[in-house]
């Protein structure tokens, strides 16, 4: 599953540690989510999406390759 966490974080000029502190998770978890190795729980997915003012389906896309770039 692709996500736009890294892209959104970089757009806002945040470090992984700053984003982790804002979301209330560890820096390692932000790294894992960004790389797609860890799928966050629904509450954390909503927290991430709300932090970036996006909907969950815009933030996480199960079969997105083209849509993310569109």
């Amino acid at each position, binding site marked *: 599953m692709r996500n736009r966490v890294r892209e959104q974080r970089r757009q806002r000029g945040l470090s992984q540690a700053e984003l982790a502190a804002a979301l209330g*998770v*560890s820096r390692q978890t932000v790294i894992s989510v960004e790389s797609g190795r*860890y799928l966050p729980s629904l509450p954390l997915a909503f927290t991430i999406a709300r932090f970036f003012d996006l909907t969950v389906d815009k933030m996480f896309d199960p079969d997105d390759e083209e849509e993310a770039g569109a």
Partner: protein
Amino acid sequence: MMTFIPPRLRKPAVYALAGVLFAAAWLVRGGPLWWVSIMAVTGTAAGTVRLYRLGGTDTDEGARAGSRADERQQLIGLRSRALACNLAAVASFIGLTAAIAVRGTWGWPFLVTFLITGYGYLLGLGNYGVAEEGTPDDADTGRPARSPVSS
């Protein structure tokens, strides 16, 4: 009780308590091996300090040692404990089977371990599976769903 202890001290405190109990057992046992209790206390003190210092590091292990693990880190711990229990169940089954085959009288600890892991598994199913299922909706009971507009 644990909520009164600062998070970073919780795991070291449990570790220290377990170590002291282990050392006390050797001391109560007495005999020529009483000095093992001294070694146990020394090892426990060193391990407690190491665990406390680990709890201050910015790593997954540090987060768990410091009792501040987030959902992913808790999941790692949960999977690790599940793997440990699986291994204990398999090892106890092998030990029990071997004891039966050679008519050994040393098989009962394997039987106890196997029964505990099996009972723990069933307890987990009861607590975390069935109890959380809830009651089915009409549509899931096999009965035809009632339409609000049907006569």
